């Protein structure tokens, strides 16, 4: 779960509201007991907590990827972390995306300046990458969560 960028708050509030865009219900977040006519006790059955469900890992549009390098450390995404990527969510400026820029898979914050798309690293040592006319940009998906192991074991 990444921190929101401080500069984001200076942007239009519209952007902040689109992390779960309309039209993409996330049923796994709101568990309901199956309907029918069950025994009264069933009303009180609770299932085990499932990270699969919380992160939407079983949804057909959700994929995992591993982060290489520290270009996103400013938002708390570090080398070796796992990221949960949703292909169905519309990539809006301010969201962290997986993008293929000239076929190179990148994790960056998507920004837009007028008509100009920018892929921004969250690390001062990486210059922002302006997407130029001859560049080929493919937005592969939007990063919803990141998962970090705090031991030497791989996440």
């Amino acid at each position, binding site marked *: 779960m990444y921190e929101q960028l401080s500069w984001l708050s200076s942007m239009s509030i519209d952007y902040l509201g689109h992390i779960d865009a309309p039209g993409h219900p996330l049923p796994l977040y709101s568990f309901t007991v199956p309907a029918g006519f069950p025994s009264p006790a069933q009303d009180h059955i609770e299932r085990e907590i499932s990270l699969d469900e919380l992160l939407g890992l079983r949804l*057909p549009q959700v994929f995992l990827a591993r982060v290489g390098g520290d270009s996103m450390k400013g938002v708390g995404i570090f080398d070796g972390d796992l990221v949960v990527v949703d292909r*169905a969510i519309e990539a809006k400026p301010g969201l962290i995306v997986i993008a*293929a820029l000239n*076929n190179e898979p990148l994790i960056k914050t998507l920004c837009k300046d007028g008509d100009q798309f920018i892929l921004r690293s969250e690390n001062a040592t990486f210059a922002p990458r302006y997407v130029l006319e001859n560049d080929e940009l493919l937005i592969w998906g939007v990063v919803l969560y990141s998962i970090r192991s705090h031991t030497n074991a791989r996440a």
Partner: protein
Amino acid sequence: MQEPKPCFALVDCNSFYASCERVFRPDLARVPIVVLSNNDGCVVARSADAKPFIKMGEPYFQIREKLVQHGIVAFSSNYALYGDLSQRVMTVIDSLVVNSTAYSIDEAFCDLGGMTLPLERLGRQIRSKVLRYTGIPVGVGIAGTKTLAKLANHAAKRWQRQTGGVVDITDSVRRDKLLKVCDVSDVWGIGRKMTEHLTGMGINTAWDLAKADPWTLRKRFSVLVEKTARELQGVPCLEMDEINSPKQEICCSRMFGTRLTAIEPLREAVAAYAARACEKLRAQNSLCKKVRVSIRTAMFNPDEPKFARGVICELPYPTDDTRVITKAAVAALSELFQEGFKFSKAEILLMDLRQPNEFTADLFAPAQSKGDGRVMHVLDEINAKWGRGTLRTGRVPVTPEWNMRRELKSPSFTTRLDELWTVR
């Protein structure tokens, strides 16, 4: 009330194996791809742009130079990846139609009877949602019978650019127009031999077949050919099981009559489907090395908890033994099953098929006895592996075959944590 007019859609993934290889390799979007059979034997799949250069079934060792010459990239088959992406595609399709049945790893028939939406629009919706969610391009054919839907799908592929990958021939004028431009060999279930017989009778196009006398077709050939002709006329009469196409996978998938919540009836269903799939396997004289089991709830009802998961199970040796495959499938089900869901469908997919003489040439394969003791030993192996989840990845014990395959195999992007896509 009047019964709604029958209507079917066939959703078919474009060059499925090759498309899977491209999902995590944007650099290969415009690079031709071939996928090789187990042990890197021969070509089993080609991307559209590789088709002009490479024939189906060409042995890998014979075409190496040709691959280099045309810049074609070869992959060993990565069944874990294909199985996972197939499941995702089917789940997305399920979310858009009430009743769909996987016909093979990359095809699903949808029953659109009673759908109120304009059908072509629904077809485009299926196409765009599957592409966006999974990265896999599909074609959609829509018609009043399954055979016509298959033909419409063929047209969607052949005239990809003009049709945008969706062809609806529920309208009889459009249907007849298509029948007239398609060769009889384009028709579902009409193989090369049958085509020769038919052209000998002056039946050259799909239209000719549709107009042929059904009784003559039945007498000279079979009920199947007769039914195919009737289907082309728009009269639905083929069940899914009746059509046998040459298959690289065998799929048995059904909707349950009622939703199942307990594991016992699911087990029966899985065992029954496995038995049916094994019959099909033996009927085409193949052996299989991997079986994929998946169970799912309906995806259509937004108010019910949804579930769609599958696992791939590596079989100890290429086999057509129902007992071996059923046991593996049932073990896989126990791994998959979770309380609290109303399951609507189970699916058995037999993968990595081979002919009996294809693998005996492998001197380094472990000695294979098909005795019961071996079967039990294998089961123990499977169960031991289940606990650690290794079976799910489709990983094979170290054998020469596996070593060789690994050289060209893409990572198991979706099923192994240590092989995930790396982004920088």
